[in-house]
């Protein structure tokens, strides 16, 4: 039984990602979409937090939203998986439940 957590706001602007990481359990998946994708750039202020979370949780990012904002694949923090909308759908199938951190 695992949960897909969906975060759609920039961690620089809002507390949603930090709250989510405080709740996501080992084995859960976290998907960053919309403005949240700016959080995954290697070397940014949230790199340490995300790296720590990757120890026991899956972190994914929606590639269409990365591309829109001019963030190339190679700038994404190591360990974060890129998915497209089809992959987004698959994540909702693989996990038993979803929770959006609005």
């Amino acid at each position, binding site marked *: 039984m695992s949960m897909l957590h*969906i975060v*759609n*706001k920039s961690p620089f602007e809002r507390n949603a990602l930090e709250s989510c990481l405080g709740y996501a359990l080992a084995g859960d998946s976290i998907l960053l*979409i*919309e*403005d949240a994708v700016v959080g995954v750039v290697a070397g940014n202020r949230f790199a340490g937090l995300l790296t720590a979370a990757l120890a026991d949780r899956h972190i994914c990012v929606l590639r*269409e939203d990365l591309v829109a904002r001019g963030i190339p694949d190679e700038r994404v923090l190591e360990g974060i998986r890129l998915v497209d*909308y*089809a992959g*987004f*759908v*698959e994540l*909702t*199938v693989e996990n038993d*439940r*979803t929770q*959006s951190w*609005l």
Partner: protein
Amino acid sequence: MKYTILVNEGPYQHQSADTALQFARAALAQGHEIFRVFFYHDGVNNGTRLAVPPKDDRMLQKEWSELAAQHGVDLVICIAAAQRRGLMDADEARRQGLDADNIAPGFRISGLGQLIEGGIESDRLLVFGD
């Protein structure tokens, strides 16, 4: 899988409606079923037929109508949220004594029970908002 999708924001101001649409299309493409899309809060504003966006931009309200026409997706606008914000179908406008309505084809106005029913009947309920 059977999905219900909740859309909490209006078109354009936030990306929520775009993401919900893209997700719905991707799910349908994989053979999943969209049981219902429920529009709540400012999400009700997705259901207007009076929008005329610039020619070089997408027209979200019409894309929803097309999704309903092509895939039979049930698009439900919350009546309480719609009344606060001025989204009306012809029946409701008449009942309220208003001189116009503005709902787009493929949408219907109903109660919050339709959202709960979606949560009960579907395998997954996804929320898109601000």
